[in-house]
């Protein structure tokens, strides 16, 4: 079983990388991009016995820094 963890900066936290990507897109001539936020996706290959609560604990203890980041867990069908 796989799960994906999406880690994103909280709203209101400055994202300089997102800003740089935004400027680069504008430089390439893409219009209509209002804002860019960069995050990361972590894919976990898990034994079936791993519960949702375990994945959430992994996020809180290591995968995300909840001072500045949010996380979202998505379980994938086998």
């Amino acid at each position, binding site marked *: 079983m796989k799960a994906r963890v999406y880690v994103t900066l909280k709203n209101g936290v400055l994202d*300089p*990388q997102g800003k740089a990507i935004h400027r680069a897109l504008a430089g390439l001539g893409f219009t209509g991009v209002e804002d860019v936020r960069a995050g990361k996706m972590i894919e976990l290959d898990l034994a079936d016995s791993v519960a949702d609560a375990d994945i959430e604990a992994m996020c809180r203890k290591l995968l995300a820094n909840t*001072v500045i980041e949010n996380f979202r867990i998505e379980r994938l069908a086998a």
Partner: protein
Amino acid sequence: MKSAVIVFPGSNCDRDLAVALRETTGEAPAMVWHRETELPDGVGLIGIPGGFSYGDYLRSGAMAARSPIMRAVAAAADRGVAVLGVCNGFQVLTEAGLLPGALMRNAGLHFVCRDVALTVENSQSAFTSGYDAGETITVPVAHHDGNYNADPDTLDRLEGEGRVVFRYADDVNGSARHIAGIVNEAGNVLGMMPHPERRIEAAHGGTDGRRLFEGLIAAIT
């Protein structure tokens, strides 16, 4: 006084910090590898050095903060042992929850490597007892992730409790309220982005950093 420097894979200021401690304590510190689970007996000062522990994987300091030795460091900090985290060491201390807030990518995206002017906000802390409050000192920074961030309540509490001990005189990296260094509630854990261990001798261009070590050692011995 006995001191220790924690060494992670990717630490690169551990030897500079060791020289600073040797010069100011009169005794070479124990170099403690991150896989260790205990600190040597009688250590009164622990240094967490700068560098790129674990290649900054996941987040700067995130992996190092979960190293086996950090449990011993947290226990020692609880007992009141002085802990000094410089640069990556500051990032490790926030990731370990020993200091509040987080250090994010510099607002200007550039790696900043130069001398900066710091205001010593508070000389009551053991770490700043070698300085005068309000004094401006010059210490170098060298970091990519030094943009200090915490929620407004935390920032207000840090300010109100006199726990912002060093502030950049000018904006360096986008840090909230120009914060360069903070102490924990008990005052025995300091995290700072600038490198005091790189200003120990006149040949380094000044000795403003040496006074941090000398003041600290005088305060805790």
